[in-house]
């Protein structure tokens, strides 16, 4: 289908560009899936800009995965003459399209994209505009200005250091000095601005951060140099100043996380759709934006759609998959009159529901109204840097005052000069650089292994963790219905064929799971009937063959024990039942004992008690496992674990873990596909990498040791420098050598030490050097498989 659209418009070269280019397109969205885009209010919020003629919109297309995608999407104008030249941002997986509203509507544009396999992803959260480009561009410019000033001031300072004779041109040194001073002003006002701001902010909150001694050092450098140059007694330390700021900014940019495609601050609005289909009293339907839903609205939910708000089922039956919300691993049947909670995904024929609570007040979303979500919950990981810098700052200030006092008695004229020399040399440039570079390197190594950290300081948080809390469904286990076991009389191959035929005809997840266990050819069932919420029936060898719940079979007058599972009956004879057990992820059963030898472990699950039975079978070391927890219970469980002061790491995947992830010291969200929704967290872990968790934790501990070593080295440099400065011998040349030397050596130790730590911990970055160039193995479909399996 896609091929025919493309070849009609001579775009079939798409398939030559990349052998992975083709993706399996699902059934396609239902017709009218994008009707909500016709709503003018919503449309205005979604578009970037319009001048009445051309409108710009940015779509989020998670399916973008290769060069050919870029090629195709940037040639969209070949498909419709209302579309202008579009632009892909590969890392963010976005497409910016200009289009002519008089020729193509937004609904048609979204439909066109989804027909060629790129279904735009509209979520409630996409209404909130986010622009962090400004900050990033600013950081680049600050770096550029600092680098420019550093290079030029260094050149101007060289003659002074080399002692070039200036007998013929006595006016030259002042000119050089004045030029250096001129060049250093933008460094002070523009590049170093953030350091002054953050130091000032810290002081206002009575908190001494590493930025305080840095700001003090920069100020001392500048004013001492300006004083020297203006009085004509020397060339000052301006090259050290510019170099210091330049190195610091490089360190800052190094630890900035560099993956745009991931978001670590997502809340429920990034999970819910933009709009729902409303049914009016007269039977007509209209799309209604989710944020304007009110109690009493009647909605139609189609196959694979989310229940957007707590509601009562009016027309059913419904089959709701709550796995992502509650951790309950099996879809549940709901009958008319029952309450459906927001966040569940419906499978099967369309249902109608009546909203009883608004979106933001629903059972699930009310978690976000919890007080911990309302305040800006900023966790501080840089505890090590902060504690060291607090002691350091106090020491520096005391030292400066002490040397100042000593010199006041011995040579009052030199007092100010020497005090500022102490401040200059004590400026913790190396100290401030070691943590960003070590943690930044760790961030990159871990990214190569499939663990994406929010920022470098999460490594420090990971190293402090003493207690691990796991979610079960979707984290330790595969999720979904699990593995299927048959308990009963042996099934003949003819019966297996009939069963396969029957179960294949149903879309029920349990039927699908059962049908996948048979290897025989399916036999077309005769007289097939599906009793929603009850079971399946067909005619086989002249008698009815029934597969369904024990309750249903008992209603039919059969002798069936009241046990969970799918029971099979042929005629009046009960043959046995299929039951389902959670199976652990590959490798998890081996790595858990490794972890439990070092960490305390807790399993928190929203699943039923019997789910824990199977867990204990393959993980006997599990002492603390709690079942049937609501999202709020999980949050409280984490608080309780943390109450004795030990750092807790929560590893979970679903929306029901959102509170626990937020309250733990380090929250790790597990996901099958890093492009899909993950709740707010500190780190995102690829599900297949869970068995490697012991290595990641060991690596984080080693990295912290590397930082401690480089702290010690940079302190040695400082003590040495301060000793020289306090004795009154600090020359600009000495400062110009010592500062870059200490910075660069600490930087090298941090980076290579961390790499060595990775080798010690056995981490070998996989083939995914860049997270975004991997082909997606999941075909895009209206029901993302990975969310189902969560």
């Amino acid at each position: 289908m896609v091929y025919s659209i493309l070849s009609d418009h001579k775009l079939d070269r798409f398939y030559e560009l990349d052998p992975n280019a083709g993706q399996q397109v699902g059934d396609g969205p239902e017709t009218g899936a994008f009707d909500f885009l016709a709503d003018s209010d919503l449309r205005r919020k979604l578009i970037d800009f319009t001048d009445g003629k051309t409108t710009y919109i940015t779509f989020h297309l998670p399916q973008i995965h290769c060069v050919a995608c870029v090629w195709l999407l940037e040639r969209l104008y070949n498909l419709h003459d209302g579309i202008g030249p579009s632009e892909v941002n590969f890392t963010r997986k976005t497409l910016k399209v200009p289009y002519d509203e008089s020729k193509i509507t937004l609904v048609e544009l979204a439909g066109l994209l989804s027909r060629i396999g790129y279904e735009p992803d509209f979520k409630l959260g996409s209404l909130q505009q986010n622009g962090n480009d400004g900050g990033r561009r600013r950081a680049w410019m600050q770096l550029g200005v600092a680098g420019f000033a550093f290079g030029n001031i260094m050149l101007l300072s060289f003659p002074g250091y080399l002692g070039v004779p200036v007998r013929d041109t006595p006016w030259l040194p002042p000119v050089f000095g004045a030029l250096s001073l001129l060049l250093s002003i933008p460094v002070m006002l523009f590049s170093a601005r953030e350091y002054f701001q953050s130091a000032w902010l810290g002081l206002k909150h009575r908190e001494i951060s590493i930025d305080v001694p840095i700001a003090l050092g920069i100020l001392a450098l500048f004013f001492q140099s300006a004083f020297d140059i203006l009085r004509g007694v020397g060339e000052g330390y301006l090259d050290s100043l510019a170099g210091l700021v330049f190195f610091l900014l490089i360190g800052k940019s190094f630890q900035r996380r560099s993956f745009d495609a991931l978001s670590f601050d997502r809340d429920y609005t990034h999970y819910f759709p933009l709009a729902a289909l409303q049914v009016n009293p007269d039977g007509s339907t209209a799309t209604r934006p989710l944020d304007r839903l009110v109690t009493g609205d009647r909605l139609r939910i189609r196959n694979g759609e989310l229940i957007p708000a707590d509601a009562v089922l009016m027309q059913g039956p419904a089959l709701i998959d709550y796995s992502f919300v509650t951790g309950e691993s099996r879809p549940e049947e709901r009958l008319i009159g029952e309450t459906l909670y927001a966040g569940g995904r419906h499978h099967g024929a369309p249902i109608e529901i009546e909203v009883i609570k608004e979106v933001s007040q629903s059972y699930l979303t009310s978690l976000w109204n919890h007080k911990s979500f309302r305040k800006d919950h900023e966790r501080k990981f840089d505890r090590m840097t902060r504690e060291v810098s607090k002691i350091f700052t106090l020491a520096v200030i005391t030292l400066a005052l002490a040397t100042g006092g000593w010199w006041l008695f011995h040579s009052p004229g030199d007092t100010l000069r020497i005090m500022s020399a102490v401040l200059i040399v004590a400026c913790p440039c190396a100290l401030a650089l070691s943590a960003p570079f070590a943690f930044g390197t760790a961030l990159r190594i871990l990214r190569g292994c499939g663990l994406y950290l929010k920022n470098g300081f999460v490594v420090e948080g990971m190293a402090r963790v003493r207690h691990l809390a796991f979610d079960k469904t979707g984290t330790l286990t595969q999720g979904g219905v699990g593995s299927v076991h048959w308990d009963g009389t042996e099934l003949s191959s003819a019966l297996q064929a009939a069963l396969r035929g029957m179960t294949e005809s149903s879309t029920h997840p349990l039927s699908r799971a059962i049908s996948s266990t048979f290897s025989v050819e399916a036999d077309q069932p005769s007289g097939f009937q599906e009793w929603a919420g009850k079971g399946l029936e067909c005619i086989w060898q002249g008698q009815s063959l029934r597969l369904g719940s024990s309750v249903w079979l008992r209603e039919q007058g059969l002798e069936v024990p009241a046990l969970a599972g799918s029971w099979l009956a042929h005629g009046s004879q009960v043959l046995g039942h299929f039951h389902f057990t959670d199976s652990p992820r590959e490798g998890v059963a081996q790595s858990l004992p490794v972890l439990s030898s070092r960490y305390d472990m807790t399993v928190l699950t929203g699943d039923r008690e019997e789910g824990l039975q199977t867990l204990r079978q393959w993980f006997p070391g599990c002492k603390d496992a709690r079942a049937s927890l609501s999202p709020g219970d999980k949050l409280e469980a984490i608080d309780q674990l943390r109450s004795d002061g030990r750092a807790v790491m929560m590893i979970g995947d679903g929306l029901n873990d959102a509170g626990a992830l937020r309250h733990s010291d380090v929250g790790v969200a597990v996901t099958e596909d890093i492009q899909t929704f993950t709740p707010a967290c500190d780190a995102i872990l690829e599900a297949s990498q869970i068995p490697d968790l012991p290595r990641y934790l060991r690596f984080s501990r080693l990295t912290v040791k590397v930082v401690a070593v480089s702290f010690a080295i940079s302190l040695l440099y400082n003590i040495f420098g301060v000793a020289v400065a306090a004795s009154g011998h600090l020359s600009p040349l000495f400062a110009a050598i010592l500062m870059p030397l200490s910075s660069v050596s600490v930087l090298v130790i941090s980076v290579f030490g961390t790499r060595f730590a990775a080798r010690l911990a056995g981490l070998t970055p996989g083939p995914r050097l860049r997270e975004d160039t991997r082909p997606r193995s999941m075909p895009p479909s209206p029901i993302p498989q990975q969310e189902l399996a969560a």
Partner: protein
Amino acid sequence: MSVILILLLASMFLALCFLGAFLWSVKQGQFDDPVTPAMRILMDDDSSTRESSPPEHT
């Protein structure tokens, strides 16, 4: 020795030009997306030229 002044001015002017070019490119958004342009450059401009020339491998 005044030649050094000319050199100084020239070098400063040149350096400022480069700084200006850098700042302009950042403002233009050339540093916003470091990945996609690298892919774009590898793609041929036009698919219509291909039709006039026969496919190389048949």
